[in-house]
């Protein structure tokens, strides 16, 4: 895997230009912003994604992580508790076999 961060930035911005109302675009752009050490921007993008899709548990789960990155521990806790309040059984399952890089639970 090659890490073409600048190219990713351009593609995210293009996606948002094409559809600024797409929650997933904001959500994934937030991940990119977090990975490129722009936590404040990542938080804004995640909040925008949640505004567009307020029932999304995965986005709310991400919001907790963004708050954690921003050292907002109480806010992180609130986001995760809120996700569990909306769905006590909420779990992101593993989708790939461990041998090729699974992530889940």
């Amino acid at each position, binding site marked *: *895997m090659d890490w073409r961060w600048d190219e990713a930035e351009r593609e995210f911005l293009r996606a948002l230009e094409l559809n600024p109302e797409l929650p997933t675009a904001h959500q994934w752009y937030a991940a990119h912003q977090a990975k490129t050490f722009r936590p404040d921007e990542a938080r804004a993008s995640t909040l925008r994604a949640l505004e567009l899709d307020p029932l999304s548990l995965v986005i709310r789960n991400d919001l907790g992580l963004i708050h954690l990155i921003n050292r907002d*521990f109480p806010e992180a806790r609130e986001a*995760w508790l809120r996700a569990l309040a909306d769905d006590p059984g909420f779990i992101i399952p593993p*989708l790939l076999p461990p041998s090729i890089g699974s992530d889940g639970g």
Partner: protein
Amino acid sequence: MILASSSPPFFLHRLDLMEGDLAGAEEWGRRWAARTGSMTVEEITLLTRAVGDEALRPDALGLLDDWEVAPGARWHDLAFYRVLLGDNEGAIRVLSRGTPGGGEDPLRRAPVRPPRESACSNGALPVGRIRVAARPAAGLRMTHDPAVAVPLQDGGAPAHMIEPLLPVVGP
């Protein structure tokens, strides 16, 4: 056993550990383990209790040793527990190595975080002090191909992509 994490119960377990609430961490951890099977209830209980009980640390570190050589182990989870257990050198070793199952390779073409001034009271490296180099640092070598599959969630869930490398351990 494979470590896996991306869901609220596990994050709350980790957050409680970071804030020193071992009872809360154990409760969330047991709930997460029972629900996912990613590790056993006994294993996460051992790891949690060992944070506050040095007598349990050899067993806990032995468990991490076993996981470190297992396929699919997530290097940042392993490093997280090692720091909490006082094994900073082991944490650095894990972070330096990374694993194909860890979601990404920390030493391959990742962005470099700007330096931060914060420091941990226990001597652990906070996130901001870990510079992610574009190539292996002196004395390190790459042990695997950097190609890593990126797991996708239904509807897009990049939590695995934004999970902090190594959260700051609280005082």
